[in-house]
C-alpha cells in the first residue's frame, strides 16, 4: 500500500518536502488505519505476485485444560489481543423447524443396529448374476420351463383364435405404428408390446373364468427379510408390474422332487462373497415383511411379475443381472406370502409350496421364470431347497426394421417384422393361464 499512496501523494502535493513527506507517511500510516480515505469504499490496487496455492491452514488447536479457566474477551464485548475467543453454548431451537433440521449421527438414530443388513433393491446389479441370486435364495436351478406348463397351450382350447396373426399385429403396433416419429423408443415399445400381449391373453376370459379373478398392479413397494448364514438380508423396492390373483398358484413339482433337492449342494462363489454389490445398511427394521398391499386386499396371491428392461433409465442391467433381479423379486414376493401364511419363524418344509412366476423382456428377448418356494429355513446351506425353472434369452422375433438392411445392393433383412417365433408366445400364454385352466 505504501508505494502507491506515496506516489499519489507525491503527484498531488508537490509543495510537500519529500523527506518530510516520506517520514511522516511512514509514521502516520503505520497504525494501518484508514488513512487518506475517500468516503467511498476503495479496492486495493495491489495484487500478489504469482505463487503456489497456499495449503489450507488448519485452525489453531484449542487446548482444554481441566480446572483452568480461559479468560475471554466476551465480557468486554470487543476483541482484545491476548485473550481467548469466548465459546458460546450450542443453541438449540426450542420449536421444530423442518427447514433447519439436523439429523443426529448414525449411531444415535433409533433404528441403528451394530450388525449390518444387506439390502437388494431394484437398482442392484449383482456381480455374479443368477449364481449369486441362487445362493442368496438357497435355490436349485432347472433350465427350461416345467413340461406340464408347456403342455398347457398344446390343446386348442387354450389357444387364442388367429393367435399368430394377432400377436404379429401386436408386435407391429408396438414397434412401428405407435408413434408420430420414425420409430418409437425402446422403453415405449417394450411397454406397449407387454400390454398388448397381456390384452391378447386376457381375451380368453370368456372361456377361462379364472382369468377374471386377477388384477394388475404397479409401483407397489415390496419388503422381505431373511437370514442366510450369519448375515441378514432384505429385499426392498418397487419392481415392476404384478399380476395378483385371488387364488394361489398350484405347485409345480411334487413332494418327492422337493425331497430330492435336499441332496443337492449349493454352488459356492469363492473368492467372491455373496454379499458383493448389495447395499449395506446399519439402520433397518428387523422382521420387515411387507407385501405392498393391505391385509384385506382381495387379491393377495402374487401370480406373475413382469419386468421391463428399460423401465429405469438410470439403471441399465446386463441380461445376467436382469435375470438375477427377476429371481430375487419373485423370491421376495413368495417369501413375504409365506411369512404371512406360516409366520415369520423359519419353516423347514412348507405344506403347500408357494409358486410365483416372472417374465422379463426388453421388447424382443424374453426371460421366463417359475419359482417354487419350498422352505423358509434359509440359514443353513443344507436341507430342502427352493426350485426355479428358468428359460433364458428366447427371442420373440428376429428383426423389426423400419428401413431394410441393404449391404452391397442386396437386401439382407427386409423392412417390417422378420423371424417371428410362435412358440415364445405360447410359453407366455402358458404362464398366463397357469392356475386358471
Amino acid at each position, binding site marked *: 500500500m505504501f508505494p502507491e499512496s506515496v506516489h*499519489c*501523494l507525491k*503527484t*498531488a*502535493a508537490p509543495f*510537500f*518536502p519529500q523527506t*518530510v*513527506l516520506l517520514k*511522516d*507517511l511512514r509514521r*502516520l500510516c503505520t497504525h494501518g*488505519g*484508514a*488513512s*487518506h*480515505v*475517500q*468516503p*467511498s*469504499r*476503495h*479496492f*486495493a490496487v495491489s*495484487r*500478489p505476485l*504469482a*505463487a*503456489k*496455492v497456499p495449503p489450507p491452514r488448519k485452525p489453531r488447536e484449542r487446548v482444554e485444560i481441566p480446572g483452568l479457566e480461559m479468560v475471554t474477551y466476551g465480557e468486554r464485548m470487543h476483541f482484545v489481543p491476548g485473550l481467548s475467543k469466548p465459546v458460546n453454548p450450542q443453541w438449540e431451537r426450542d420449536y421444530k423447524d423442518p427447514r433447519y433440521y439436523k439429523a443426529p449421527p448414525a449411531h444415535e438414530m433409533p433404528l441403528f443396529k451394530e450388525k449390518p443388513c444387506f439390502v437388494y433393491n431394484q437398482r442392484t446389479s449383482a*456381480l455374479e448374476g443368477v449364481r449369486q441370486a441362487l445362493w442368496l435364495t438357497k435355490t436349485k436351478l432347472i433350465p427350461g420351463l416345467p413340461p406340464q406348463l408347456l403342455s398347457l397351450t398344446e390343446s386348442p382350447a387354450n389357444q387364442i383364435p388367429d393367435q399368430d396373426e394377432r400377436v404379429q399385429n401386436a408386435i407391429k403396433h408396438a414397434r412401428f405404428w405407435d408413434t408420430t416419429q420414425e420409430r418409437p423408443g425402446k422403453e415405449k415399445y417394450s411397454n406397449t408390446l407387454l400390454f398388448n400381449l397381456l390384452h391378447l391373453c386376457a381375451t380368453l376370459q370368456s372361456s377361462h373364468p379364472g382369468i377374471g379373478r386377477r388384477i394388475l398392479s404397479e409401483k407397489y413397494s415390496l419388503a422381505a427379510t431373511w437370514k442366510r448364514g450369519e448375515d441378514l438380508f432384505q429385499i426392498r423396492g418397487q419392481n415392476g408390474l404384478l399380476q395378483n390373483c385371488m387364488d394361489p398358484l398350484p405347485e409345480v413339482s411334487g413332494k418327492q422332487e422337493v425331497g430330492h433337492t435336499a441332496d443337492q449342494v449349493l454352488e459356492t462363489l*469363492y*473368492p*467372491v*462373497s455373496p*454379499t*458383493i*454389490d*448389495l447395499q*449395506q445398511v446399519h439402520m433397518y427394521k428387523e422382521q420387515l415383511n411387507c407385501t405392498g398391499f393391505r391385509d384385506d386386499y382381495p387379491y393377495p396371491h402374487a401370480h406373475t411379475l413382469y419386468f421391463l428392461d428399460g423401465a429405469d433409465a438410470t439403471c441399465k442391467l446386463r441380461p445376467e443381472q436382469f435375470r438375477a433381479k427377476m429371481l430375487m423379486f419373485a423370491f421376495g414376493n413368495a417369501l413375504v406370502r409365506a411369512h404371512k401364511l406360516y409366520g415369520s419363524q423359519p419353516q423347514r418344509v412348507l405344506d403347500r409350496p408357494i409358486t410365483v412366476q416372472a417374465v422379463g423382456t426388453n421388447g424382443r428377448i424374453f426371460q421366463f421364470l417359475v419359482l417354487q418356494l419350498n422352505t423358509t429355513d434359509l440359514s443353513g446351506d443344507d436341507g430342502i431347497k427352493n426350485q426355479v425353472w428358468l428359460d433364458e434369452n428366447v427371442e420373440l422375433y428376429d428383426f423389426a426394421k423400419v428401413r431394410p438392411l441393404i449391404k452391397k445392393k442386396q437386401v439382407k433383412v427386409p423392412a417390417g417384422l422378420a423371424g417371428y417365433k410362435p412358440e415364445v408366445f405360447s410359453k407366455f400364454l402358458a404362464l398366463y393361464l397357469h392356475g386358471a385352466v
Partner: protein
Amino acid sequence: MMALSCLTRALRSLTLSQPALFSSQAITQTRLGTQGPKAVGQCRGFLTTTCLEQNRTSWKQTEKYTTRPMGMKKTGGRDQSGRIRTHGIGGGHKQKYRCIDFQRLRYERNNNAQPFEEKVVEVRYDPCRSADIALVAGGSRKRWIIATENMQAGDIIKTSGVIGHMAVSANEGDAYPLGALPVGTLVNNLEIQPGKGSEYIRAAGTSGILLRKVNGTVILQLPSKQQVQVLETCMVTVGRVSNIDHNKRIIGKAGRNRWLGIRPSSGLWQRKGGWAGRKIKPLPPMKVYVNLPSISAQ
C-alpha cells in the same frame, strides 16, 4: 516551520471526523460531488477479488474409492499459474479416470491380515495409462488394479503379506512381499516403502528382476537397468505388465498423436549441444531406499 505546517496538514487529513482531500482526490471528489455526501463512512479498504493466478482446482469430487469411471479435467500442460510448464500436451480424446488401487495388500474390513484371493472380473483398456487394467473382486469389494501379461477374466489371484522361510513358487498376477519370492523372478508394481503403494514398474510390458537378497533388504533391477535396494516387506506383483506390444505400435499419422493429446513440438531448429547423441556411461550407483545403520556404529 514549514515542516510543522506540513505535518499538521497531513495529520489533519488523517482525522476520522473530517476527511481531508489532496488535490487530485479533490478533483475526483468535485466530479462526483454532485451526488452529494456519500452515506458510506470511512472503512478499511479490502480486497474483493481472490487471486486469479491460482486457478488450480482438483476435478476429483470424492475421497471414497469407487470403481465407476469419473470425468477428468485436462490440464493442457499448464500449472496453477496458467502458464505452460510442460510443452506438447493438449487436446486429445476425452478420458474418464478409473481409480486404480496401487496398494495391492489392502485388507478388507472383516479380514485381519490373512492372505486373500481375488477373482478377475474383466480386463480392459485404460485411456489414462499404457497398461491394461483389471477389475478384481474379492470378499465384498471390487477394485481396479494394473493387469499383468496373461491375466484373463475368471482368473484367481492371490495376495499375501507373509514371508516364509522357503521362497514361494509364485504364479503370474499374485502379489507377495519381496522377501518371499525366489531370486530371478520378474516383478512389477514395486513399492519402495512398505504400505505406501506401488510407484515403480507400472508401464506396459515392463518388469523388474529380483537380483539378490541381502539380510532384510532386497536388490532389484528396474527396467532402466538401475539397481535399487528396498526392504523385503515391500509388496510386488509377479510377472510382466500387460499390453507388452505397446512399444511396437506404429502411430501412423500425426492425427493419431493428436488424439492421444500430444501436441507438435517446436519447429525451431536448435543447434544440438552436449545433451544430444548416444551416451555410454557406467551404471549409476545403486539407490538405497533403506535406512541402514552406519558401519561406524559397531
